[in-house]
């Protein structure tokens, strides 16, 4: 319908089976298995050293895999050299050719595919329009801003109509405002072209905002893959729970659907036994001055109530954070963070005030030996 559809390539299905990378005795990627549907953008999310960039490089063919399979569009890629894989890559530092103009940079992939000069000119112009950089074709990379360089890198990778697009932390070198802008632009382009993409990042906000699915990597292993909602509401491991979003952590002995803590007992969402760790999201906790009646159990299930004193109030614009010390006087105590949207808190709460914190048992995330 519009010019973008002219650039749509045949999107591919990407499958990873037991992808592994070993450096001597160190395992950087440990049996990564994953499927990406056509047109999906999947994030590889994790802290530095978790193996996400290594995995990306193996898919691109830049790092040889120690074991495992990579299938793109039904084509198995082990043994296929990087320059024969038909995969578009956007590098973290853009890796633009400094000695070529913007137009030459973008045209490079087309030259390699022996496109005629007329076709190259036309497709380069299309690509520049796609990333909103018309008019900059004769500039050299050194004359462009970071955001502009990033768009050129994107255009260069897309103009060749690759089967899949790989992005290696493309936004980490941009300032906050530009990151958000580019986030939306990249997502728009990806969706318009319907191109399958992998987006590597350590920023969970980015991953959740941009991608259809998120794969969380932890020390070379895939901890969980799912929609942003899946990861946030139903994290499979403590690592995912703490990496995606914020949380308050407690540890104690579980017995059925109850966990014993040094300063009290909490009702939790599911039963288990032995040592357990449980987590409650800060914005699922209600905070009220102690003089008020805590909520009673109802249709939502049992309520947990903790008593404590407000130690700190942090006004963060759209949120207010309260740091509350609970369990004082019981020997061991803990600091609990509560988040409320600004203006949502009905009863005023100030530093030093005794308060009661309440949260539903259903809102707890328990990690331990399942019952």
């Amino acid at each position, binding site marked *: 319908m519009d010019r973008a559809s002219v650039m749509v390539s045949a999107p591919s299905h990407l499958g990873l089976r037991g992808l592994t990378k070993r450096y001597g005795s160190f395992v950087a990627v440990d049996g990564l298995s994953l499927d990406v549907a056509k047109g999906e953008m999947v994030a590889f999310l994790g802290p530095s050293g978790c193996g996400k960039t290594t995995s990306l490089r193996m898919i691109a063919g830049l790092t040889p895999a120690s074991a495992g399979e990579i299938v793109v569009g039904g084509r198995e890629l082990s043994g296929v050299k990087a*320059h024969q894989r038909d995969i578009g890559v956007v590098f973290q530092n853009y890796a633009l050719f400094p000695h070529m103009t913007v137009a030459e940079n973008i045209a490079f992939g087309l030259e390699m595919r022996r496109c005629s000069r007329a076709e190259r000119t036309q497709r380069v112009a299309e690509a520049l329009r796609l990333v909103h950089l018309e008019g900059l074709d004769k500039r050299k990379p050194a004359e462009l801003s970071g955001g502009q360089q990033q768009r050129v890198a994107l255009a260069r990778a897309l103009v060749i109509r690759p089967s899949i697009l790989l992005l290696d932390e493309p936004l980490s070198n941009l300032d906050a405002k530009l990151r958000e802008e580019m986030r939306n632009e990249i997502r728009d382009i990806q969706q318009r072209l319907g191109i399958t993409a992998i987006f590597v990042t350590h920023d969970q906000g980015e991953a959740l905002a941009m991608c259809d699915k998120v794969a969380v990597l932890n020390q070379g292993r895939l901890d969980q893959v799912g929609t942003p909602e899946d990861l946030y509401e139903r994290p499979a491991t403590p690592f995912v729970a703490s990496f995606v979003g914020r949380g308050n952590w407690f540890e104690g002995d579980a017995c059925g659907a109850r966990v014993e803590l040094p300063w009290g007992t909490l009702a939790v969402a599911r039963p288990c036994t032995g040592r357990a760790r449980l987590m409650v999201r800060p914005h699922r906790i209600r905070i009220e001055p102690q003089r008020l009646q805590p909520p009673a159990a109802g249709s939502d299930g049992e309520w947990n109530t903790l008593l404590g004193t407000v130690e700190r109030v942090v006004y963060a614009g759209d949120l207010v954070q309260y740091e509350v010390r609970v369990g004082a006087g019981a020997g061991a105590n803990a600091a609990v963070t509560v988040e409320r949207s600004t203006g949502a808190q009905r009863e005023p709460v100030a530093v030093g005030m005794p308060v009661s914190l309440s949260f539903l048992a259903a809102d707890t995330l328990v990690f331990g030996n399942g019952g």
Partner: protein
Amino acid sequence: MDERPISRALKLTAAAMFLLLLAPLLVVLPMSFSGDAYLAFPPSSWSTRWYGAVFKNARMVDAFFVSVKLGLAVTVLSLLVAVPAAYALVRLRPKGGGWLLALFTAPLLLPTIVLGLGLLIVFASLGWLGSAWGLLLCHLIVTLPYALRMLVTTLSTLPPAVEEAAATLGASPAVVFRRITLPLMAPGIMATSVLSFLVSFDEVVVSLFMTTPKLSTLPVAMFHHVEDRADPMVAALSVLLVALTLVVVLVVDRTIGLGRAFVK
């Protein structure tokens, strides 16, 4: 930025030492215009006769052309040998690459008198003494360590990501090298060429062992000349050589920008 004033004592001492450092070159310049038949200071008369004598001296002129041709040949060969070697060491990273680089740098640590003797003995047994190819190989040994180290540094400062990007866009390793790596190495290659040429052009000790009266380089011819007698002709020749070196360095710097090769 606060600038500490430099003490007068230091300024004076440094100036005096600088004078010492530049003394020979400063003396040679006026001597080259001496009208005397032998080296004497101050000259009793002034003349440009010795400059003329340089161009009329067949031995010197022949030796000059030998040095130039040799220098050019050695430069080209150094590049042809050192560029692939640098690429292999920096991009392909073979096992023991560190040891290999140390080995290839080792000739720099060897005194030229020892190297010259070693080459003399080996080449004599091979019958290569006095041959142009033998001389070429000797100069190559001397220039290669400089060339290799310089090119390894150049390549090391090129981010591999740019070459990887080219590969993902469909360029085979040979195309990546031709279209991306080589153009980006250009300033370094230029600097290496200039250095190789000058090192070869000025090389004297190893050449002393390798040359004969029939095949002689300019520094060797000058050495033998000075050994016999000291006359102002060598002064004139020295001034010409220093000027030539300056011109070469300046021209290359203006056209390609040597500064870029050293300041990354």
